[in-house]
């Protein structure tokens, strides 16, 4: 067997190998980053288009939730100071987009399992493009969901009681929060062994988070510790902020907890934190994953 003399090496090659993550890409790569991200987004959306079952699910589920909750619980749940349908909608919006974001997790896990991640990782593309494309697709799907839910909500008597600008801000906030959460899910998706784990785990974790909140009932009606949890639950802050922006709070009292009193600020801080923490973690994780 031949052993090759290390001749012809550049001196820089003899420096110890660096294990630090690559620095952020210089602006010259911005066009490449954008175009790669778009290429992957397009690929994910094509997948959505070609799997009608997934698309039907994504469209029907929000409609179903709006109708079920408003028509079934609407007559039974009393919210002092508001009509239940008005109160409920922000909760449904928030729950739906949060669950929509879990798609990033299962899709990353699936891509890893299918081996297509290995293909991407051997191409000279931008190192975050796959993740950007992934989370972008969730954003598109969630935007679609929100539009459908708002339409259905209007049909069952829900109304925006503020300005157009404020309503758009509400939509923007839902999408910002869910987009940030997509990155959390993407990291999870790259860390588990199979896509099924993601689906099961997200139901186990997200159901308590969305139900032990002010999404469907007032926190004050929950037993002691659950009330405290609900008031400090980020989902509650999102729901509260969206309710305020849509003007659906009526005369319902705002709980005396900081995140509830400053719901919009809480959501903005929370979303920023998720992005600041999870985007770099995702990029770093992506640089070392490989199928099987």
């Amino acid at each position, binding site marked *: *067997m*031949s*052993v*090759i003399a*290390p*001749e*012809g*090496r550049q001196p*820089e*090659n003899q420096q110890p*190998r*660096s294990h630090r993550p690559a620095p952020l890409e210089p602006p010259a790569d911005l066009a*490449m980053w954008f*175009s*790669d991200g778009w*290429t992957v987004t*397009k*690929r994910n959306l*094509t*997948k959505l288009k*070609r*799997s009608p079952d997934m698309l039907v699910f994504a469209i029907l589920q929000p409609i179903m939730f709006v109708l079920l909750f408003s028509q079934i619980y609407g007559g039974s749940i009393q919210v002092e100071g508001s009509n239940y349908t008005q109160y409920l909608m922000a909760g449904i919006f928030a729950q739906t987009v949060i669950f929509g974001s879990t798609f990033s997790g299962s899709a990353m896990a699936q891509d890893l399992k*299918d*081996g*297509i991640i*290995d*293909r*991407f*990782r*051997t*191409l*000279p*593309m931008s190192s975050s*493009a796959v993740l950007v494309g992934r989370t972008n697709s969730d954003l598109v799907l969630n935007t679609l969901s929100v539009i459908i839910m708002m339409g259905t909500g209007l049909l069952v008597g829900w109304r925006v009681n503020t300005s157009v600008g404020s309503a758009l801000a509400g939509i923007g906030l839902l999408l910002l929060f869910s987009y940030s959460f997509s990155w959390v899910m993407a990291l999870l998706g790259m860390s588990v062994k199979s896509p099924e784990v993601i689906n099961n785990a997200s139901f186990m974790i997200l159901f308590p988070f969305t139900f032990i909140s002010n999404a469907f009932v007032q926190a004050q009606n929950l037993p002691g510790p659950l009330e405290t949890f609900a008031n400090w639950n980020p989902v509650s802050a999102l729901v509260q902020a969206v309710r305020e922006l849509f003007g659906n709070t009526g005369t319902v009292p705002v709980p005396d907890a900081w995140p509830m009193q400053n719901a919009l600020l809480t959501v903005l801080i929370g979303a920023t934190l998720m992005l600041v923490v999870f985007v770099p973690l995702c990029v770093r994780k992506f640089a*070392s994953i*490989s*199928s*099987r």
Partner: protein
Amino acid sequence: MAIIEAERLKKTYPSKSGPVHALDGMDLSVPQGTVKALLGPNGAGKTTVVKILTTLIQPTAGTAHINGIDVLRDPKAARRIIGVSGQYSAVDENLTGFENLEMVGRLYHLGARESKRRAQELIDQFELTEAGNRPVKGFSGGMRRRIDLAGALVNHPKILFLDEPTTGLDPRSRLSLWGIIKDLVRDGTTLLLTTQYLEEADQLSDDIAVIDGGRTIAEGTADQLKAQIGGHRAVVSLVDASDAAAARQILGRHGDGEPVIGDDGRSIEVAVIDGPRALQYILSDLGESGIDLHDACMRRPSLDDVFLTLTGRRTEDTDETAHQKEAAA
């Protein structure tokens, strides 16, 4: 300087029962324009080497250079000149064959028009025209492999890595893929190939490295290896196991090396030099001694034989052995 050079590569994975050494100080050198096959059983470390050289994973220790580029320090530069087709077809099931190739072109930054043109060119070259406009989902395994291989060629790579390109394919698809690969390397593309099949290594490569336990245990051309392990095998299967000793003696007389009695006690095989003639002599002597046979045949040496000769033990993958018998038939 060879176009692929790896030195003392080590890759260790932690596990509950202590560290696992996937690679244990592997050296590898492939001159430009040649085809090298890494031959070894499952778990020998073949895929790990390919994953390190194609920037997918980092070794625990050692160095790796392709075309003078330090793969570990500058993976992006390495990615521009390689094409990779893995063991599991890395194609998007929901995209058509054409869309898959076009997407890869875009991610190589060929531009919209050139990506489309190159995708069409590969579709034509790989005779995927019919399948080009349908989602990959409905394709056979052989067709997927071809699309995956086409994906590895989008950027006219200087170095091509194929990890077990024909594992799991039926014999006809395997032959067709061999034809494609032979055409590819004719124009001077350097190819590093991994395989579990000696015949595949023999068909496609200039040079073979036999891998076991994360290191190279033998290296040379197919002919050199065959000379080392003997040529064909003559195999007889007895009606009565009590004839085994007598039959063994006869096989020993005409064979090149010690005859081996199989686990069932009825089949005996021996390496032979002049295959057909040796088999003739063996059969004639067995007939004279009145030993009845179920079966008698000649077969080419398999990975199992290479292993038995080089390491004194058999490979432990039964599926693979079954497959080799089928491939040799």
